[in-house]
């Protein structure tokens, strides 16, 4: 998703920059005509319509949906200064994994990275609460857990790892 987000942002920012540059270049041209207010109204309604469409499209499926109870596996993760306590070393491939994320002390952020160090998803790890997030891994391999919320002097050292395997041994 990240390349798409970057691309869309750069295109929109570039388009806006071109419009602004044209306005700057038009300083010595003719003044804006009587149609300016009409164009403003059109812009407001266009932005509103786009906003409604994008909102409906992006929220129709709840982004924080949790796998239903009994489906997949549960992994308990707890953050502390400055470690991750994960109750398994391996999780299954192609099955929903629901992470129950809490904290022993201050706020942390659990970010799951793939082997290319691409962030797949994240949630906050905070004292007194359990944040739930579900994800289905589609590639086997080693995944990193990085801290995404500043938590003190060794924040950058809060890295852990687990493996996604096709079949988790029964002893797990």
């Amino acid at each position, binding site marked *: *998703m*990240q*390349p798409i*987000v*970057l691309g869309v*942002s750069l295109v929109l*920012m570039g388009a*806006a*920059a071109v419009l*602004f540059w044209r*306005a*700057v270049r*038009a*300083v010595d*041209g003719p003044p*804006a005509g009587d149609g*300016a*207010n009409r164009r*403003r109204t059109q*812009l407001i309604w266009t*932005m*509103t319509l786009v*906003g409604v469409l*994008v*909102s409906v499209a*992006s*929220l129709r499926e*709840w*982004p*924080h949906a949790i796998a239903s109870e009994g489906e997949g596996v549960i992994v308990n993760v707890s953050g502390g*200064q*400055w470690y991750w306590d994960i109750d398994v070393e391996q999780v299954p491939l192609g099955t929903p994994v629901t992470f129950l994320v809490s904290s022993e*002390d*201050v*706020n942390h*952020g659990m970010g799951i990275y793939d082997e290319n*160090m*691409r*962030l*797949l*998803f*994240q*949630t*906050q790890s*905070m*004292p*007194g*609460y*359990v*944040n*739930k997030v579900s994800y289905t891994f589609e590639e086997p391999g080693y995944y990193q857990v990085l801290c*995404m*919320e*500043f*938590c*003190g*002097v*060794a924040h*950058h*050292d809060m890295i852990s790892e687990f493996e996604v395997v096709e079949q988790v041994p029964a002893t797990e």
Partner: protein
Amino acid sequence: MSIQAEPQSPSDVIRPLEEAHGPQSGAVKFTMLLGGVVFALMMVFGLIMRAAQGAWIEIEPEIFYQLLTAHGAGMVGTAAVSGAAIMWYFLGRHVPLSQGIYWAFLGLFLLGVVLILGAIFLGGYGAAWTFLFPLPAISGGAWDVGAAAAFILGYVSIGVGFLLYYLEVGRRVSAAYGGLARALGWRIIMTGDVTGAPPPTVVAAAAVTIFNSIGIVLGAAVLVVSLVNLFVPEFEVDALLAKNLIYFFGHVFINASIYMAVCAVYEIIPEYTGTKWKTTRVFAIAWNAVLLFVMAVYWHHLLQDVVMPPWMLVVGQLVSYFSGIPLLAVTAFSLCIYIRGSGMKWDLASSLLVLSVFGWSLGSIPATIDGMIMVNKVMHNTQWVPGHFHMYLLLGEVAMAFGFMAWLVRGREPTEMGVFDLAALWAYVAGAVGFVLVFLISGAASIPRRWAVHLEEWWLQDRIGTVFGGLVILGTLLFVIRYVTGLLRAAEDA
């Protein structure tokens, strides 16, 4: 109480020469001098951090996080105080304001700065400017409670100063315009009649006074709770409630700095275009929307706190998007209309002020996209976040502040930009654009923010960002030098 007449024709919008030496100008000029110097110093802190992330220099992580804390608190504080100085200066055109209150505000602000700097560089405090509960009390041995208490008391001092400031602004505006509702343009919204409409600066002052006062009071509540928790650890507050209060305060406070500084655009650009910036019905509706949106949007900082009620996260996403409409369709659109065909001259002041609205607008685009829950899942707390806020601060609020400073030391008429001004402007613009683009690209590459030590594969972006950061500092230093020499020249002339 008299209300100063608004300019009615292009010739009237030229500022009276004596205004630049009026009773409020000394305090405001001093504030902006302070602001310019601190902006430059905080940028140097930022440069050190980027160079350290890129392994060009080596600093201990505790020093890095102290610099991070100083940079965040210093930049937010300086943006706020410079925005406050700008709004004070121009509001003084429309209502009388007490100079004593301003000095009290500035004195409390400086007291806060001393406490914060002492906490960081003497006490080793490094919990970032957001003081996320309960991190100030649980440092893992990096600092003691005294340092954390000094930092919190520094914030309290600054907050009290700002409340004094807003009390003065609020009561003066209310007295002059028959209440804050009228100053917000409610009558215009209801009737469509713009006769006797409050000037844009007054509308802005009324809105900012309301939302930032609320923000500061709620911020004070969580500061006091955090302070008690330092000395009585058994006294705990719900971490999620504290996070809500902190992000409400932080979001509102930094946004207020831009909404105060935009008064420079409303008041100075008309000198160049010859057309007064008018309070229309759309303008009044936009500012009333801003008043609500600024307070309702802070949930977009909590999109990964999935224990929050889902409707709050949805509101955070929706308001994040719709907040862009007043900015893009009203402020930026109006600016384009005002300058089009105006024949305005481009000096440093006008260039920076026009740039500031465009930079602010462009920065809102990646911010809005990050405000979508599905995007936030992979962008939150990556370098995408400093990417977008550096864009609307560096190319927005800070550009407004430097534009205002250039105007303060300008002669009566605009002059063509010389080599010095052009070099300063383009160094700043090229540096800032490159700097924020590197942050955005790094965010898309999933590089987390606020990490003292980076993986080797991230060093290239860090180093390119460092070079662009150096260019920003060069431009900033030239702006500050130009301002100081302008002040000295004016003093000699006087």
